[in-house]
């Protein structure tokens, strides 16, 4: 099977996206001193690399075999559900001042990552 090649490509695009995001986040303060033009260019580059990452993910999903595709689909469904329910709940906690800090999108992204990895591991264990 040819999935290793597509997995490596996805890893390459994901690494590129993370690095470009880090550059946008820290570069504005430490490199180009919040120059709006440079920030916009870097954000556009980050978005384009993000599109590449999404396409690489789609290509990988087309290559993997049908059981792995089912495991991925289940994991994505669970992750989407958790994102919606937990994200809205978390936002409500912030709006109603139940929590004393701002609900940050990064917290949700972290939760999504953990949920997705856990769902993949459980899915693989289920079909072992």
């Amino acid at each position: 099977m040819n999935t290793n090649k597509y997995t490596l490509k996805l890893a390459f695009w994901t690494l590129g996206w993370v690095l470009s995001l880090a550059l946008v986040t820290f570069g504005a303060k430490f490199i180009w001193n919040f120059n709006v033009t440079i920030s916009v260019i870097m954000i556009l580059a980050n978005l384009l690399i993000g599109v590449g990452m999404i396409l690489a993910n789609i290509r990988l999903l087309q290559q993997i075999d049908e059981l792995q595709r089912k495991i991925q689909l289940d994991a994505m469904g669970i992750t989407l559900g958790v994102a919606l329910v937990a994200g809205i709940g978390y936002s409500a906690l912030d709006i109603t001042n139940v929590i004393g800090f701002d609900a940050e999108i990064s917290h949700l992204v972290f939760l999504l990552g953990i949920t997705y990895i856990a769902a993949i591991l459980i899915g693989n264990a289920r079909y072992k």
Partner: protein
Amino acid sequence: MKNRLKVLRAENDMTQAQLAEETGVSRQTINAIEKGKFDPSLPLAFKFARLFKLQIEDIFEDEKN
């Protein structure tokens, strides 16, 4: 869905890895199908049928029957 994949594989002296290679799926998929944990798609069921020179219904059986 019940299936005779494990029996047919043994009759043809094939390992799970060999059957996986022949049908273009992973060994994990073959194992999950044999254990009845995962039902294959129709194209994959046809691949099994062609490989063992049988009809699909000779390999797979609806558990309601």
